[in-house]
Structures are given as structure tokens and as C-alpha cells.
């Protein structure tokens, strides 16, 4: 089932959110189904249209002082309809003291009421951060992720094509391994991709003939990174004499993951071609493009300019 459990909030870090459970312990397995945080001001006033009951509900001193202005009957009624909705939990900020009706109804409806000693300005960003991370779209891909000059290069290609061997050579030249074989990809802020390795196999590689090796022990701390933004996809494939490879670099190929397009190049593998050097240069070229210089494009513009200049000269001579 998707979403995260209310229990996970209490378990996060060493109770990082400084939460105490006041009531509704029977609902600790409730699921938070959306990453947002709702402050149910309108719902407290009795307006329940479009009430976002899938997310956690946050009450502060403002909401509680509003509740105290209501008649006991209204208060019970409004709290009843909020707690009667399938909300995951209620969090009180700044050590606020809830009215006794809230705790009573919450206990009955099995909705956990948690109180934090943190104020809203501290707690809300932390909660947001935590929830966003839990709800990030993710996928996993059979590839190797290396960091070359700060560009995360994802090597893909069929098994046995030499992705790991190629990565190993790059590491021995001073580049860094992020993940081998299984790369977990997460969509960050809805627009870029962050890759990291599964914790169990982190910084280990399997090289045919050597077996499993520990890169951080062999090459030291400089040879590894825990995560890196994917900036370039390099697809390795067997050299195919029939296939036309990019000879200029004006063709723009992309690789799509989680709805994000990442620039991709296809590098044919054949004895005598030093793939690691090609990939190293591809990463540098990608950096150059990011810095605003596109070698192939600039070169072509210069050439076209040259040809047009020459044509103009010829026409002038003819005209004279």
C-alpha cells in the first residue's frame, strides 16, 4: 500500500520532530496518502467541501484559540466532522494544549493526536522535506552511475557489454563511483533525477574474473559518492557496421526516465576504441554545453558563416 504510516513520523530520526502521542494510539498505522500539510482552518469553521483528508492536519495556537470561541456544541460538531473524515493524524505545534473534546473524539475515532514542542516555522519545513522525500517518484535501472568532473554519467547497455569494466577504468583514473548494477533513480523537485545505489551493495562492484570488490576500501574515500544528479546517459552497444552513428554531435538524443529527458549519446564498442576516454570527453563536453558552449553547433555556425562570406565576395567580384 502506498503512503507512509503515522508511526513513521514518530520513528523518524531520534524523534526528530519532537512528537508526543496524546490520543488515538489505535490509529498509528494510518496512512498519510499525500505529501501536503493542511491547516484545517475552514474545516474548523464548519466548511467541509473539498476537505483534503488524505494529508496530515496541523493545528497551531491560532486554530485552537478559534475553537475556544465556538460554543461547546459547535466545537463538538465541527471536530466531529473533521475527525470523522479519514484523516491520518493531527499534529499540534508549539506544545499547544488541545481542548478535551478533541482528544476524546480522536481516541474514539482512532485518529492519533501528536504534539510537537517545535514551533510551526521549524516543524513545517522539516515535515515538508520528509514527506516530499517519501512521495518522490522513483525507479530503478540496470546501469552504472559514475561521477565525472561533477557530471553524473549513467552507463547503460546490455549485460556483458562492459559497463562495470569501463566504470572501473574511470575510477582508477580518479573519477567516482556512485552505484554499480542497480541504480535507484528519484525524481527531485519534479524536474531532475538523482541516482544512488542500494544500501546493501553500495560502493561495491562485480567485475568478471575478480568477483565482488569494495571500491571505497580499494581506492579510498575519494573514489566514491553516495548520490549524484544524472546529467548524461551513455548507451554502450556492440559496433554495428550497418548502423549510422552520430558523426557531428548535432543530433540530440534523449533518454527518458520518470518523465524527465536526459541527454544521451550512443557509443559503439569495438576493440581498439578506448571507451573510458570517450566517455570522459563526453562528460567534459556535456559540462561545456551546460556552461553555454556547444562545440558542434559553434563549429557549424562558423562554417556556414564562412561559406556565406565567400559567396558574397564572389558576387561582389562578379558585380564589378
Amino acid at each position, binding site marked *: 500500500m502506498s503512503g507512509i504510516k503515522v508511526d513513521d513520523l514518530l520513528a523518524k530520526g531520534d524523534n526528530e520532530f519532537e512528537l508526543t502521542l496524546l490520543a488515538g494510539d489505535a490509529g498509528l498505522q494510518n496512512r498519510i496518502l499525500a505529501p501536503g500539510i493542511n491547516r484545517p482552518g475552514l474545516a474548523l469553521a464548519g466548511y467541509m467541501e473539498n476537505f483534503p483528508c488524505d494529508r496530515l492536519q496541523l493545528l497551531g495556537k491560532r486554530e485552537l484559540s478559534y475553537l475556544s470561541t465556538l460554543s461547546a456544541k459547535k466545537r463538538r460538531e465541527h471536530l466531529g466532522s473533521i475527525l470523522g473524515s479519514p484523516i491520518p493524524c493531527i499534529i499540534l505545534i508549539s506544545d499547544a494544549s488541545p481542548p478535551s473534546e478533541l482528544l476524546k473524539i480522536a481516541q474514539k475515532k482512532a485518529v492519533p493526536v501528536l504534539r510537537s514542542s517545535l514551533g510551526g516555522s521549524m516543524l513545517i519545513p522539516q515535515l515538508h522535506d520528509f514527506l516530499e522525500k517519501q512521495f518522490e517518484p522513483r525507479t530503478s535501472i540496470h546501469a552504472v552511475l559514475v561521477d565525472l568532473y561533477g557530471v553524473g554519467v549513467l552507463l547503460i547497455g546490455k549485460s556483458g557489454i562492459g559497463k562495470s569494466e569501463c566504470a572501473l577504468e574511470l575510477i582508477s583514473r580518479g573519477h567516482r563511483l556512485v552505484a554499480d548494477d542497480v541504480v535507484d533513480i528519484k525524481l527531485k523537485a519534479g524536474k531532475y533525477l538523482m541516482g544512488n545505489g542500494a544500501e546493501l551493495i553500495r560502493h561495491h562492484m562485480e567485475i568478471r574474473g575478480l568477483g565482488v570488490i569494495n571500491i571505497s576500501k580499494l581506492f579510498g574515500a575519494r573514489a566514491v559518492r553516495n548520490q549524484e544528479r544524472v546529467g548524461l546517459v551513455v548507451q554502450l552497444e556492440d559496433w554495428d557496421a550497418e548502423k549510422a552513428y552520430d558523426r557531428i554531435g548535432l543530433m540530440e538524443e534523449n533518454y527518458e526516465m520518470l518523465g524527465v529527458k536526459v541527454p544521451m549519446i550512443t557509443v559503439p564498442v569495438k576493440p581498439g576504441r578506448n571507451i573510458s576516454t570517450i566517455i570522459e570527453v563526453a562528460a567534459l563536453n556535456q559540462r561545456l554545453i551546460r556552461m553555454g558552449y556547444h562545440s558542434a553547433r559553434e563549429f*557549424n555556425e562558423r562554417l556556414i558563416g564562412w*561559406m556565406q562570406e565567400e*559567396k558574397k565576395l564572389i558576387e561582389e567580384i562578379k558585380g564589378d
Partner: protein
Amino acid sequence: MIEKTFIIKNKLGLHARPAALLVRITNQHVADVYLARDGNKVNGKSIMGILTLAAGRDSELVLYVDGEDEEIVMRKLSELIESGFGEE
């Protein structure tokens, strides 16, 4: 060996994209291909060579094709050049 003269028709001339299309054809065949313009002759399988010709619009280009599949290579190259490399 066969030889044929062409006039470059597209606006931007024989720039990188058309050159890439050209070498794609020449590299698929065994026949040797040479391109000449104003006395400069380059290997038709080398993209950088072709670009040094800097053959702009209305310039004259001579193609030399030599080898067992020369007919088919010349036909494909003619189609490509005469179509203006698919550009305006």
C-alpha cells in the same frame, strides 16, 4: 570510375548536417568517393574533409566514385545532393 558535377542548391550549403548525411551513404559502400571543389579534392568518407571544402550555395561540386558498387553510390548521392539535402 564515374564522375558527375553538381551545384549546391540549399541555402546553408554543405554544412555539418548535409555532410553527415553524405558520409552515412559513402561509408555504407565499398566504392571510393572523392569530392572536389575549386581544385581541392577530399575523401568522401571523411566528414572533416568534406567540411573543409566549405561548399556554399551555388558552388560547383565534382563527385568521383570508383569501385564495384559505384553506380548505386552515385545514384544515392545524386538524389541526396539534388534534393538539397532535404533542406530549403
